[in-house]
């Protein structure tokens, strides 16, 4: 498995890429990505999913602050046994870190590998860098920016 966390698209956003060759047929890998019950086991229980472009569906995950934990998705592209693309949105602008605003795209690509195996590639793209990335580096005085920003959220942790 290869994992390129900092793979970039050349723009202001970044992608996560995870890739692995599975010794199984593409049809089977496709099933794992598109069968409601199997998606539940791989990710979370989807609500309303169908491998049909335009379909809107949701996942429920752990809430954070003013975000109720709903991930809103919409199927954008379907090429059976080859490609599945959906949007992946959630979060709230008041949160930082986990639960912050999220507007991303998940792309699953399947391609044949040797001996009937399947290469599965996930690209989760569209992550916006924090407005000022250095804000998170203590040495550049980032604490001055970060600590006041999170201070209002800290009450929950008392």
């Amino acid at each position, binding site marked *: 498995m290869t994992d390129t966390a900092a793979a970039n698209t050349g723009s202001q956003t970044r992608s996560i890429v995870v890739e692995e060759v599975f010794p199984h047929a593409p049809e089977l890998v496709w099933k794992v990505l598109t069968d409601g019950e199997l998606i539940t086991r791989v990710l979370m229980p989807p609500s309303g999913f169908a491998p049909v472009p335009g379909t809107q569906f949701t996942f429920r995950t752990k809430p954070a602050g003013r975000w109720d934990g709903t991930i809103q998705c919409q199927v954008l592209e379907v090429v059976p046994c080859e490609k599945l693309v959906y949007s992946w949105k959630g979060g709230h602008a008041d949160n930082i870190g986990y639960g912050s605003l999220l507007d991303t795209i998940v792309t699953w690509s399947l391609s044949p590998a040797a001996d009937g195996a399947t290469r599965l590639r996930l690209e989760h793209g569209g992550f916006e860098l924090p407005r000022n990335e250095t804000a998170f580096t*203590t040495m550049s005085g980032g604490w001055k920016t970060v600590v006041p920003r999170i201070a209002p959220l800290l009450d929950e942790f008392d």
Partner: protein
Amino acid sequence: MIQDEHVNTIMRALADPTRRKVYERIATTEEITVAELTRGSGVTQGAVSQHLKTLRLAGLVAERPEGRNVYYRAEPQGLAPLAGWMSHYDAFWRERFGKIRDILKEIDT
């Protein structure tokens, strides 16, 4: 998710106003001792030491013992886990690929 817990640990460490002041003071110096941190802080050296322990466990500060003194400095990347979703999903997807592997093994008969 491990990442969430780390974020929570950092948030909890900074939630206490006194501890936050201690952290801010460390962040503005190269290195500083407990005695120096205690001076003018309005709390006892024992309390400062407790706060330092919490900050250290949250990955916000590092310590360096030298002779009878222990010097504290801010971890440069200490606040990085607050940076966003990316580290969260990086761990998430890698873990999910493991599940895909297991499920494929199970359903391929």
